[in-house]
């Protein structure tokens, strides 16, 4: 499959990338790992006239501690996230999700920023970013702004990212008692239903809960009813079972495709919610 013709250039810095993008008058796209974009270009679903390669911009990739928070550069490949000693120790849900993306070759190339910008309805990272209440930093020619993950994902392949902006990094407070569980499509490893759960537990009580769901609807979303059912309750198997039972009950519409019917997805949301919550609670102790 041969994509439509395009011009290619490599950006030396973020400012250079933004300037080059602006010069294309809307006809340009950034490419890093290219593992969402290149397949679309091969199918000619995307035909950018200019590709600006951001893969080697210094500082755009890497996982850093910033005070109490962790920052992951947008250009960080999934393999690096999956194997990061810092994340595996302090916030294992992120590594766990990254380790389940695609296959080893895909994880060697695909990036966090690419996944977030593309916002595939079945992508894993969006659910995790919702559960961690992550901040997503965006840079435009006139400055930097930060968007909450809960405001970033807006619809099918649609995010709060202006045509002149680039994702720079994500930041979040690490949560040890958090886990990601997914039912995945066997060939692509995309989520049919993916649930990311982050709990705040102290003195045997669930003080806070954030649950992100992916794969089930047009875009990743929080499961507020489950969060409410958990908050203030004893950190027990019974609490989790009761809370998971209502997971997704109010969700409309739910996806139906060749991989799973709406009915099946609806049945699986509570199952994987319970699995994610169980593992999150195990990590709390």
């Amino acid at each position: 499959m041969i994509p439509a013709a395009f011009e290619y250039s490599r950006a030396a810095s973020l400012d250079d990338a933004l300037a080059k993008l602006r010069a294309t008058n809307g006809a340009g796209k950034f490419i890093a790992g290219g593992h969402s974009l290149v397949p679309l270009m091969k199918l000619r679903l995307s035909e950018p006239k200019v590709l600006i390669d951001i893969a080697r911009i210094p500082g755009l990739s890497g996982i850093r501690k910033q005070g109490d928070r962790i920052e992951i550069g947008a250009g960080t490949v999934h393999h690096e996230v999956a194997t990061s000693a810092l994340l595996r120790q302090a916030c294992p849900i992120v590594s766990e999700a990254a380790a389940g993306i695609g296959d080893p070759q895909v994880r060697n190339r695909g990036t966090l920023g690419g996944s977030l910008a593309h916002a595939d309805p079945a992508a894993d990272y969006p659910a995790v970013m919702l559960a961690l209440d992550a901040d997503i930093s965006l840079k435009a020619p006139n400055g930097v702004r930060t968007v909450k993950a809960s405001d970033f994902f807006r619809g099918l392949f649609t995010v709060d990212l202006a045509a002149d902006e680039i994702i720079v990094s994500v930041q979040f407070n690490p949560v040890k008692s958090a886990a990601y569980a997914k039912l995945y499509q066997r060939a692509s490893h995309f989520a049919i239903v993916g649930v990311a759960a982050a709990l705040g537990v102290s003195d045997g009580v669930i003080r806070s809960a954030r649950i992100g769901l992916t794969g089930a609807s047009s875009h990743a979303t929080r499961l507020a009813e489950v969060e409410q059912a958990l908050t203030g309750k004893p950190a027990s198997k019974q609490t989790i079972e009761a809370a998971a039972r209502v997971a997704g009950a109010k969700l409309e519409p739910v996806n139906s495709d060749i991989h799973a019917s709406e009915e099946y997805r609806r049945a699986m949301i509570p199952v994987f919610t319970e699995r994610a919550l169980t593992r999150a609670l195990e990590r709390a102790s």
Partner: protein
Amino acid sequence: MSQVSMTVNGKVRKATVDPRVLLVYFLRDQLRLTGTHIGCDTSQCGACTVMIDGRSAKSCTIFAVQADGSEITTIEGLATNGQLHPLQQGFWEEHGLQCGFCTPGMIMAAVTLLKDNPSPSEREIREGITGNFCRCTGYQHIVNAIQHAATKR
């Protein structure tokens, strides 16, 4: 057109390419390294797997221009002085192939697997080749071949 320069199997190769040319076509058609195969052409089957800067990648999902300045290893670059690489030897000894179409990609994926994990369990081997499909027969002999190579190293 773009100018690219990359080290392929230890040799610097400079060329002029159309930016839309995928790395796998560049390797096969321009450099005539036809050991890297094109299978599904949709980033799934892994037949086109090569190493880019020391890690496995699907060369059907990367434009040659993206690999400018990189070090590429293909199946042709594994043997040294006529001596098969331990993984090539393993596939030979354990009959790790039937038709052979997936073999170059399987071996390149396994090179990265053994680099990360020199003595993988059977389960880890199976996970390590999830990005590669064999449509002949099954995976048992492939797993045996990778185990053979791991114990020989």
